[in-house]
């Protein structure tokens, strides 16, 4: 360790500055009438049996560094030559898998006296996982006028702090629920400061993570233990003006999750997910939406199902309606009738009659719309559900 320093009058020392920790006291107490009564371990004067002291302890090891945390490091160039050294400068870069970031590049110091040091604290929010290399270059002028320099490399791994899993529930073409599971895969507990869904411009979002009186669904435990999974729920809606884009690619990007946590002594970490993509609902040229239908109905009594048919294609369509009867609810009226020509982006209303013949929760299925020009059939099942009451 000394050998490399010998060649150069300067020595570079580097220390990672994670947050210090607060010393834990271990009280060893006596009562007044005991053989000896002074406490032996470290403890607070006012509160000897309390376990957390007031003394900060510097980090004793490099520790782990996680994506989204800030890498802070102390760089110290010390002159141990016994003579003054001229024109000393320090440059530090961080080499990641994909890029090289300059953390500091000091202007040359005219003279660095013996036993003095050129100090620098660099910090960088790590945005990549995997190996990182801190590259430090120290340059100085030798007494003979030559510019000399030496480099030091310090390698470390950036680890993944959280496991984020998302799941979408498409409710309607313009509404979707996002379920996010966030798991703490670090070894220490963290406090979630913020878990926000920043929606893409097409959407508005409502977080569903509080219960009635604005209490967090996670209860009073403010921290997430290692390997715990917390589940967050968001309700996204297309803004009314963007409804027509429901089946375009633009609607598949719904936003980014912004996660901010704090760990030991407020050490902050922040992660933003990439754009979350939902599978766009089957893009169909012809879209059917239920406008009105009863939720409950008596058995053997007909009811009306009012639907809207929209032509999302670029061309006008000539359509024909067929019914395929199901076992529990029967279509009534004429099957195989033609509709008026439907222009692009236009919609029309359809009023159909059905009769339920079995009690219970029944599903309306079996509507078929045929594009007569392309002889293509659009099948509509699971259109609506209705609770059929027996007499």
């Amino acid at each position, binding site marked *: *360790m000394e050998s*490399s*320093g010998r060649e150069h009058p300067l*020595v570079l*020392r580097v*220390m990672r500055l994670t947050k*210090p920790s*607060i*010393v*834990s*006291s271990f009280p*060893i107490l*006596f*009562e007044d*009438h005991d*053989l*000896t009564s*002074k*406490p*032996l*371990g*470290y403890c*607070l004067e*006012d*509160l000897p*049996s*309390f*376990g*957390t002291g007031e*003394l*900060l*302890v*510097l980090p*004793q*090891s490099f520790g782990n*560094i996680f994506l989204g945390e800030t890498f802070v490091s*102390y760089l*110290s160039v*010390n002159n*141990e030559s016994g003579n003054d050294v001229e024109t000393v400068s320090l440059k530090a870069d961080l080499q990641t898998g994909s890029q090289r970031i300059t953390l500091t590049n000091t202007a040359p110091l005219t003279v660095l006296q013996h036993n003095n*040091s050129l*100090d*620098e*604290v660099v910090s960088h929010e790590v945005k990549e996982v995997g190996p990182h290399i*801190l590259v430090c270059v120290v340059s100085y002028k030798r007494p003979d006028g030559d510019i000399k*320099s*030496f480099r*030091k*490399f*310090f390698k470390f791994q950036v680890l993944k702090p959280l496991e984020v899993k998302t799941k979408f529930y498409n409710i309607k073409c313009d509404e979707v629920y996002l379920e996010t599971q966030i798991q703490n895969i670090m*070894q220490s*507990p963290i*406090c979630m*400061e913020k878990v926000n869904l920043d929606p893409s411009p097409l959407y508005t979002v409502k977080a569903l993570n509080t219960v009635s009186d604005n209490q967090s669904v996670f209860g009073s*435990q403010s*921290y997430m*233990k290692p390997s715990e999974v917390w589940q967050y729920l968001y309700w996204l809606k297309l803004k009314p003006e963007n409804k027509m884009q429901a089946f375009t690619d633009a609607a598949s990007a719904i936003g980014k999750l912004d996660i901010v*946590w704090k760990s*030991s*002594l407020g050490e902050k970490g922040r992660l933003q997910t990439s754009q979350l993509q939902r599978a766009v609902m089957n893009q169909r040229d012809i879209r059917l939406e239920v406008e009105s239908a009863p939720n409950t109905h008596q058995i053997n009594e007909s009811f009306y199902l009012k639907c809207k048919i929209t032509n999302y294609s670029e061309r006008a369509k000539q359509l024909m309606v067929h019914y395929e009867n199901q076992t529990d609810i029967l279509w009534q009226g004429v099957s195989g009738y033609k509709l008026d020509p439907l222009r692009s982006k236009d919609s029309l209303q359809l009023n159909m009659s059905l009769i339920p013949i079995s009690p219970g929760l029944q599903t309306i299925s079996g509507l078929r719309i045929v594009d007569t020009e392309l002889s293509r059939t659009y099948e509509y099942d699971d259109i609506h559900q209705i609770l059929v009451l027996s007499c």
Partner: protein
Amino acid sequence: MDESEPLPVCTLFNQGADDGDSGADIFNGPPSSSKKPVVFEAVSVEPSQISNMPPASEPAVCDIFKSTSSSEDLFTSMLATTSSSKNDVSRPEVTIERADDVFSLDTSSDMTRIHMKHELSDIFKDAIADDKSDESEENISPPKSPIKDQSALDNTDIMASILISDDSGDNISNISFDQSLKQDGSAGDQNNKAIPSEVLQADNNCANNEVESKNDNKDSGPTPKEVKNDLKTNIFSTPPSFHPVSSETKPLDPVDTEVKDKENSSLEDMEEKKTEKEEVINEPTETSTAPLASGLFTSTSGSSSFDHKTESSAFATIADDAFSSALSTSETDRRQDAWIPGKSTAAVLAAVAQSQKRIKLEASHLSRPGLATSESLGDPVKAILARHRGIELASKRVTLSAESVTLDKNGLEKLITTGNFRAAVDLCSKVLTDLGQGFGKATQASTHSPQSVQWWHVRFALLIRLKLFEMVETELSQFGSFDSADLYYGFYPDVYPGRKGSMVPFSLRLLHADFPRHINKPYQALERFYAIRTVCKKVIDNLESNKSEDGTPVQLKAEDRNASLKLWNERKTKVLHYIGNTLFQLREYHAAITTYDEIIAQSSKDEVSLHSGLGRLLLQLGDVRAAQHRFAQVEKLAANDSKYRTQLEMNRGFLYLGANNWPEALQQFSEVLKHDPTNIEALNNKSVCLLYLCRLKEAIAVQETAAQLQEDAAKQGLTSNRVALENSLSNLVTLYELESSKSLNKKQALLQGLALTHGDGFNVACLKM
């Protein structure tokens, strides 16, 4: 995380890879930085590990505790079912072993009985789990007369020890006893119902055998109590029986008296048959071969196996104390010493109090401590000084040793105040050796006194302070759960007439409970703390219902009662603190915070300090918002109160730290130093802030000031905060390492300075040399 102990690891990337002047590609020359982050290794306690740590894997100490209590329960209910007949003497628990041929005679019936009992125990296991009758402690009636037949008892002891050495376990080695069979021969009630008739039958037979065989010098009823699983299956030899203690002290039944006579005769028999072989049954969990109860009285009869002189001198002082100051100190003593023994222990004590001659004792009723080593602990400071600065310099280091002080409290104080903890441990060794509990004395008969227990207490505390945990573990386990009968004053009615309670200081109980935390068994610690808290609650309940601490219906004077309530409430609070600390170590932060809040809810006395402490705890956890809330509460509570000035400024400093605002934090710690310039925490924290503000040289200077101030204080014999100093020195050494590659020189200089003022208890590990 429980230790403030600096790790010998350096934070620095010691030396990065060096490519000299050449501009080699970084990726070709693999950097040799020695501090690669180790994935998933840094944390000491994984919660998963914690949850995998079943309480079942706990060491013997706890098991003893558990087993005795459960066996008591078992026993009581057994009795409850058996003793409707008056044949109490014949309780199956009675254990007498005599001649070998007893076995040949009785083996079969024993076996059946064993099995039956086992079944019974199964049957009752669940039913009695909740059976926690408190009667036993109320039964302790005022001691009557000292035990008369001491010489007889002493003799029995001799006999027992002879027999112990004369191991004749082979006789029973082929009998397979159920390990889980735990019977306890203690007290019980008489008012109960029927049990399976076979059992009764067996018991009766047994009783008959017993009585008959006594005349033939053949005690019968070899009921194995607990049998060691290993080869040396010894049977614990005890006098036949003692009388059950009923809730109301009834006059003894004629039957009982009769039996008592027989017992006496059997005692005489035993005396005559000293040389006869006996086997001793051990508790499986007990490491010692258990001697007889009467061994405790050896000191007065002179048949003891240990140094008699010191022993009796110790006794003399105790006796003096007990007699002369009995009146003046009795209230305080009673208050401080009060403890509620476990049922089995209570039964023994009650029996002693009733002056019964034949008291049935088990290994678990006695503690047989002895030192784990006879060697002096030496002086590591000297050793490391010799290594780094030469033997000559090291030889100039003079510290106090156990030899240079008096063998008493004063000597101990001297060693402790000068930081010579190792010498203080040696001093404890000496005193305890003189008291007959020295090296190699474990498992041997010795007598406890408040003094001996106090010396043990100090010894344990010092060893923990020195982190010599293995030694503590060994020695501490010899005391079981500190509930053996011989640790109660009531066990020695002639030495401490009228004195009640336990010799075990309350702080020693806490130390015992806290110890498993140091060896990474926090759940065990928690279990012990809750047990202590239960007793505290019981004591407080007793006091509040106008009884004395242990539940004796005595009318205490109002101020006496209040003083006692105060003491016990304080003790209870202390236990809560320890519970909170343990939960914190377990990383059950939520539970820990709830526990501390419970303390605040009970008393607003320490509100400011507690909220501040909780603020720091929350900050450490990362819950900055909650920490803010706590600190805000403190601001409100302590506003305009100058005595809280330091606390408030410290809090603000911490809060700024949490917000990553180093300049403001620095400012706050400097504020503290303005009016409290020697505050080591503030100095240390200021230094830390300076480092993060890229002011290494200043950080070092501040830390050196802190060290200097502590050294000055040490010279005046004022250091009370050695651990804080060690932490601050550890930080200083880290700074030295960052400052220069020649940090070793500075460390050596530091060591040399420290060696002048610090005792052998100084933790040299903090210098990382």
